[in-house]
Every structure is written in C-alpha cells, then in structure tokens.
C-alpha cells in the first residue's frame, strides 16, 4: 500500500481557503491580469507552469504550488524582457528594508526604504 501524500479526505466538507496567504492570491491574479492584457496566451502560461511543476522540488503535497507559480511567472516575464531576476531581487530587498523602516500600523511604502536613492 503506497498511499500518496495527498489527502483526499474532507471532500465536500470544509474546504481550505482558496489561497493560504495574500501573496498567493496576488501572484495568481497577476497571471490572470497579464493574460487578459494579451501578454501571453494561456497555452504559453500552461507550458511555463508545467515546466516548473516538473522540477523535482515540487512537493508531493503540492504545498509549494504558488511558489512554483510565481517562479513560472518570473521566468515568463524574464523571457519576454519585461523583468529580470536581478531587478526583482533588488526590489524585493528594498521592499523588505522599507517594511522594517515603516512604523508599525503605517502603510508599507517602497519610498520608506532607507537605502533608496
């Protein structure tokens, strides 16, 4: 008996929320929005996503599905010359510094990054 790691129970009972965290919803919606804007065909997207999901680090319980989703989107944007990984990494670090520099309770803005020049 090699039962898989997926848990088929709970069907029809209480489903978990569609997205576990807000960033997953944002990453999901960006793909839908960019497709609707005509940046790529849905077949292009499915190809990018399936390539990423075929990597061995995609977990058997699909727990890192939206990490892979975001990877696939970044790859597609890089291929289209719209973004590149270095720029994304630099900006992500800036967002993290901005968050740290933002007083609790205030909105986090990229302008709050102390290293911004």
């Amino acid at each position, binding site marked *: 008996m090699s039962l898989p790691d997926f848990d088929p129970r709970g069907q029809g009972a209480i489903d978990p929320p569609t997205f576990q965290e807000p960033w997953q919803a944002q990453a999901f919606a960006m793909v839908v929005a960019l497709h609707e804007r005509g940046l790529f065909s849905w077949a292009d997207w499915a190809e990018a996503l399936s390539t990423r999901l075929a990597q061995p680090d995609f977990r058997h319980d699909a727990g890192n599905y939206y990490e892979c989703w*975001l990877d696939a989107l970044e790859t597609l944007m890089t291929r289209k010359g719209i973004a590149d990984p270095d720029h994304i990494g630099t900006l992500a670090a800036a967002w993290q510094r901005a968050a740290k520099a933002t007083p609790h309770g205030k909105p986090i803005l990229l302008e709050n990054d102390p290293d911004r020049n």
Partner: protein
Amino acid sequence: MAHHHDHDHDNELDPMTARVRALETILTEKGLVDPAAIDAIVDTYEHKVGPRNGARVVARAWSDRQYADWLKQDATAAIASLGFTGRQGEHMQAVFNTPETHNLVVCTLCSCYPWSVLGLPPVWYKSPPYRSRAVIDPRGVLAEFNVVLPQSTRIRVWDSTAELRYLVIPMRPANTEGLSEEALADLVTRDSMIGAGLALAPGAA
C-alpha cells in the same frame, strides 16, 4: 544594514510577499497591471466562482433533456448560457457518467481545471501523486476517495489542457424524481464533477 533582530512589533515582509511586491511594482510601473484589477480578480476567485456554478449546470442537465443534449454537443455554449464563461478562452467538454462508463478528470502536465464552473482546484488535484496515479491506476485512486465502482464499469480518464477542460456530469441519484433544480444542485459535489466522487443521495446533502 542591521541583521536580523526580530521584534514582534517590527514590520517584516516574508520573502515571498517581497518578491510578489517587487514583481507587481515592476509590472505596475510599466503599466501592465492595475492594482485595482488585481484585487477584483482575487475577489472573483475567492468569492464568486466555485463548484455551485457547475452544480447548476449538472442540475439543469438532469432536469432538461434538451439542455443535456446541448451540453453534450456544445458544452462551451450550453454552460455560457447560464452565465459561466471561461476567461482563458478555453473550450469545455461535458463528459457524462453512465452505468457503463465513469469519467475522471486530471491534468497530467500542470493543473488545468474548469475554473468557470468549479473555481480553483483543490490541493490534491495539483499534487504529483494524483496527476500520475489517476492515469496509471484510476480505480485505486477512486478507492481512496471511497468510490468503488462495479468491475464492469469502465473508467475513462480525461487529461485537461490549456485549451480544453472537462466537466463530469455525474449520474442522477435514485429517488430524486420531482426534485427542483435547486434541490438537485445541492446533491452535486465538487468531487463528483471531477469524477472523484458521486452525486449525493437525497437526504445526505
């Protein structure tokens, strides 16, 4: 810059949130995404589309022979007539369960799924074990969902693509004559429309 010194009142962005914000910043600056449109899409998929849409399609097919025939011949149009249209330009195909044939849907390559009628897929649908085993051992997979079919029932597995998505029309349960479409729709579970379940018996809903 300071290293980690976590105070629980500090604002911290986890790495994934920061990456998403970074990409969104780039795309917004280039005028490719509009944050308000992003929020609207999230709201749609969190609150507006889900398996209740598909259940209405199934209940109509059970109640209306002409509709069922239309659904068989042109599922995209028959489903759109109830107000459910896909946003990815995909075509729909309805596959009808019978005593002879049970249908099961999978996406072996990624996670293609009929969003307009079922919402976003459950986690197990996206998992590698389901995606591979549904093809290799559909009867074994069904058993894990507590679906045991007669040996004489053939199981047909449909592999979804970006262009073509499948909706399983489960068999109408016994003793449901005279039920309204609304009452029938309550018997239609999400899993029954993937083929990983059966419609509920009346009284079990």
